[in-house]
Structure formats: C-alpha cells, structure tokens
C-alpha cells in the first residue's frame, strides 16, 4: 500500500517549510549575498504564485483548445435517423403507436 497522496504533499511541504523557516530564523549559517537573501525571504510566496500562474495558464489553454465535436454531433443525428429507418423496417413500433 503506497503512502496516500495527501501525506506525500504534507511531507514535501513541511520539509520545504522547515528548511525555509530555519533559514529565516537564522539557524542556517550561510554567506549568501543580500539579493539572494531577499529572494529567499519571499520564496514560499513566489512558489505559490508561480504554481497558481502555471495552473491558470494550463486550464486556460485547455479550455481554449477544447474539442467541440460538432462533426460528431451531426454524425450522431444522421446515425439516429438511419437507425430509426432500420428499426421501422424491422417492425419497430413507437410507444405512441401501440394499441
């Protein structure tokens, strides 16, 4: 039995947050430049924003390229007509014609 997806996410998220918090709280001794330091301070926010933008882009693209199947609808209506004819030839009676 694999680990449920939720715990995989929690594990990944908490690992990331522990690393980030220890950096922010100053437990990690690093000699990063000021620019890097500023980026890391808001890193979780950046990650969230990047993920949100990516998701919106993917969903938007998929909605825009959704296949409308107009041909399939026409074909189905033709097939229904053909099937009706075939069934009538076989003696099919519609409920409205029953006596």
């Amino acid at each position, binding site marked *: 039995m694999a680990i449920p997806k*939720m715990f995989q996410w929690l594990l990944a998220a908490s690992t990331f947050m522990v690393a980030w918090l220890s950096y922010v709280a100053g437990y990690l001794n690093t000699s990063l430049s000021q620019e890097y330091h500023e980026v890391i301070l808001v890193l979780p926010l950046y990650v969230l924003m990047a993920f949100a933008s990516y998701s919106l882009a*993917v969903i938007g693209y998929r909605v825009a390229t959704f296949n409308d*199947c107009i041909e399939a609808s026409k074909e189905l209506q033709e097939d229904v007509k053909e099937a009706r004819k075939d069934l009538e030839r076989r003696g*099919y009676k519609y409920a409205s014609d029953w006596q």
Partner: protein
Amino acid sequence: MDSMCKFPFLVLCGHEFEIIIIDDGSPDGTLDVAKELQRIYGEDKIVLRPREKKLGLGTAYIHGIKHATGNFVIILDADLSHHPKFLPEFIRKQAEKDYDVVTGTRYSGNGGVFGWDLKRKVISRGANYLTQVLLRPGVSDLTGSFRLYKKTVLEKLINACVSKGYVFQMEMIVRARQFNFSVAEVPITFVDRLYGESKLGGNEIVAFFKGVLYLFATT
C-alpha cells in the same frame, strides 16, 4: 443481408455479446423502447434488468454484472452520449496489451465534447486539472463512464469502491491503479444529452470536491 450484423449491431460483428439494459424506473419510456428492441433482436441479445427506482450507479453495475455471460464488460450510457462506433476501438486497444481496463477519454487525442458552454468547459477543465495534480491517476479522464473492464476486474473494483456518481467513476480508476491493474485510454467524443437535460448543479460540484479530497487522503 438481413442478418444480425446490422446497425446497431454492425460495430460488434464478429464478437459474441449481449446488451444488458439497466433502467432505474426512468419516466421517459426507456423500458418500453428496450422491450421493443428485445422483441426484434431476441432475448439472448437484449437482456433487460430494470429496477423499480433509482438505486445508485454502483449497485446498477453489480446488478448488470450478475447477468453478464462474457469475460469482458463494456459500460456505456444509453442516451447516445456514448456512441457505439467506439466499441471496436475499446476492443482493439484492450487486445493490444491485454489491458485490464480501457477507459474513454474526452480530454486527449481526438476526444472531446459537444454541447458544453464556456462555463461548463471551465468547470470541467478546472476540476480535471485539480484531480490530475492531487491524485496523479495516470489517465486524462477520470469522470467518464464509457469504459471496458475485464469482468473479474470490474467485480473487484466495485467491491472496493464506496463513492457515488461522478466520484464513483473516479474512484474506480484510482483504485484500479492502486491494485496495479493496467489501464489504457482511447479518445471518445461525448455528445452531451441529445435527449434530456444535462445536470451539473452546485450539489454535484460540492460532492465532487469532497470525493477528490477523500481519495486524496486515502489513496
């Protein structure tokens, strides 16, 4: 000329099959039509298993399987939103690598849907994206019900699933993966409700999210 190999049986020519119709007391005369088809094509080809009232999808499947005589079961909606012309493609795909499940997909290849407005597309794509991210199911369409199963696999999956409605379809595929069954996909077109009205209300959406969270936490 006038053999059994005529529409709608044309597509299943060369395969042994029976069509099992489960009707949960629908008021639109489905059962009357089915009886008439049975009179024309014979009781061995058209098997009627009506139930008095709506009892849920899972139990409908169980009810149907009991009367299935073959090794494979293909499930499709009888309102023509699933076109039987795709049946040979399911069968061909299954035979390719002896897959346990072949599921129709509206979201890849030439698959698609007719009759959805922008709002419906956004909801559908959004919900699909969410489930892809959270559940990583390995298939592109989790909520469709046009599927082929090996009969033993279908029995096992139904017994393992607890959800209802859309979530039931999703759980079947997620559990299939959990049990290491092999799953393949074929693109299908879904013509939404030529007859009758399509339903997607607030309640369905809430139930869907609950279902996704349930599967997220347990699988």
